């Protein structure tokens, strides 16, 4: 039987959910799937200059997320002997995390406690709360 998959929502800042999920995965013989979402809405308004540069910026954003945020963590955990894969996607974080969880057949989601305490979270809710409400699989909120 294939190993269980634990999905980790990684915002690039908060390592706690990654480390905790790694410990749990090791203990359970599960594999990790690290998901990093680049906030993006197809309905966001852009200036003409931003339209021109969008393709370039997208390339840069993906590159930066891969080399600076995701790959080092993946390499580190791989070196520690953990089976791990990663996904970097554009979209609305909560929806993308749930989408990847469904695609990969993950059995658990690990997410950090909302790192931002801005007004945006108060109005629109955080990714953490969104997952807690919408996930169809157990979701662990790591302090």
């Amino acid at each position, binding site marked *: 039987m294939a190993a269980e998959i634990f999905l980790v929502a990684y915002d690039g800042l908060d390592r706690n959910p990654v480390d905790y999920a790694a410990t749990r995965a090791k203990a359970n013989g599960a594999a990790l799937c690290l998901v990093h979402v680049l906030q993006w809405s197809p*309905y966001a308004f*852009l200036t003409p200059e931003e*339209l021109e*540069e969008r*393709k*370039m910026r997208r390339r840069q954003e993906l590159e930066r997320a891969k080399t600076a945020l995701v790959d080092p963590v993946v390499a580190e955990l791989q070196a520690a002997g953990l089976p791990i894969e990663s996904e970097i996607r*554009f979209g609305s974080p909560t929806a*993308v995390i*749930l989408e990847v969880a469904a695609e990969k057949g993950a059995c658990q989601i690990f997410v950090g406690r909302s790192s931002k305490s801005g007004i945006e979270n108060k109005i629109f809710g955080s990714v953490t709360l969104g997952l807690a409400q*919408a996930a169809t699989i157990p979701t662990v909120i790591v302090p």
Partner: protein
Amino acid sequence: MRVSGPLLSFFVPLFFAGPALAQEAAEEGSGTASVDAWVDSIVGPVTTPFVDFVFAQIPGTDLPWIVLWLITAAAIFTVYFGFVQFRMVPHAIQLVRGHYTSPDAAGEVTHFQALATAVSGTVGLGNIAGVAVAVSVGGPGATFWMILSGLLGMASKFTECTLGVKYRTEYEDGRVSGGPMHYLKKGMAEIGHTTLGKVLAVCFAVCCVLASWGGGNMFQANQAHSQLVVITGGDASFLADRGWITGLVMAVVVFLVIVGGIKSIARVTEKLVPFMGVLYLGAALVVIIANIDQLGAAFAEIFEGAFTGLGVAGGLIGALIQGLRRATFSNEAGIGSAAIAHSAVQTRHPVTEGFVSMLEPFIDTVIICTATALVITISGVLQQDPATGLYVWDEAAGQIATANDLSGVELTSAAFGSRITWFPYVLGLAVVLFAFSTMISWSYYGVKAWCFLFGDNFVSELIYKLLFCLFVILGAAVSLGAVLDFSDASLFAMGIFNIVGLYFLMPIVKREMTSYIAKLRGGEIPKYAKTASAGGSVA
């Protein structure tokens, strides 16, 4: 309240007056007026031949040939593409909604974004001030011709925006740039007209730079100032006759965005503009619904006025010219400007953006301009003779008589204010935001054209941008009749060179369209379910 000197001299040239302008400015007697007259006297003799050429009337009629040129092109494209603007609108809406956007393209420019940016560049003072000019000079009948021009203009947009995407330039670093300069040069070379293509592209770029300083900048700054004066107390306002203050503030903000690269200001504007657009349309609907009993009469006047003029000096032709001219100024169909904004979209089939771009004249002209015209007609700000039902013509002002001799943006403001007393304040904000977003868009169009002419480097770009900021102050502060006349002519002249190219290149667009529609019908164009990356939710 009196019509301010700068306002008059900005509008008068828009509907064919010339010498009256300097006189008007001289009568004003203020410091700025003498500067205006001085600049006019220097610029006028140089630019007049060009302006006279662009707005020359067809012998025996009052119809400027350029208006006929644009509308004929729109009609030809309409027939040539088999009334594409009626057949493909449902598909265009599906494209905007992302039904055909691959999830792999998440993070790229969507059809919605290209359209939204193009619309914010187009929706502006033309929809508010321009329509007031059309209706007060051409009568409500001008609205009919405006709508017709909007509907036909959809086919021109379709043609130019398809080409904009097809012949865009994708640089190594990932930037994407397109528009008439690119398709005139590359497209014409492809069909063996290299030299003609280059000439057209250069002429287009020159006109585009000039239009970006005038219609896309000075006209906007001037009208924004005008509305700010209205809401801060009219002639008694602190800002009255101090246009340089408004101009300076706007110029500083524009400078921060286009030179300083402070994108957050532009981003906030881009977010507020659609909101203001919806608010404006909502207010118009409120006025219309509150007076729903007059709606039938208003439409009757629009149709009757379209063919009789209803007392307007120029009669049918007067209504027709004003309608077509102001609609073109507003939706820019055939002018080529929008193709620059639309060309960055992520798509495998250029023609899809052509379909999407058709929604632009529809939103701009058929919906927003018509709403403004209905509000003005319903509000009763245009004086009518109760006995005959004809409009009272004010010979001196060259328009239908209005209370306090209002025209332009002030007339629209009064029309809304007569039903929603506080709305002029909201309109003031909307006008400033629309003016600002139009300036940002046009500064971009202008800089692209400028770099095409003078090289794509930092210094050349900076020179253009600094000049652009200077024109913001000038636009708000002084009434440069001749300069603005010239810039208005440049906007329309863009259409001369653009449309010549479109005639040569339209078979290419037709091939693209035919092959795409065949694939679409054959089910070869994949339709995607909503995914999280495409903005949907799987929760």
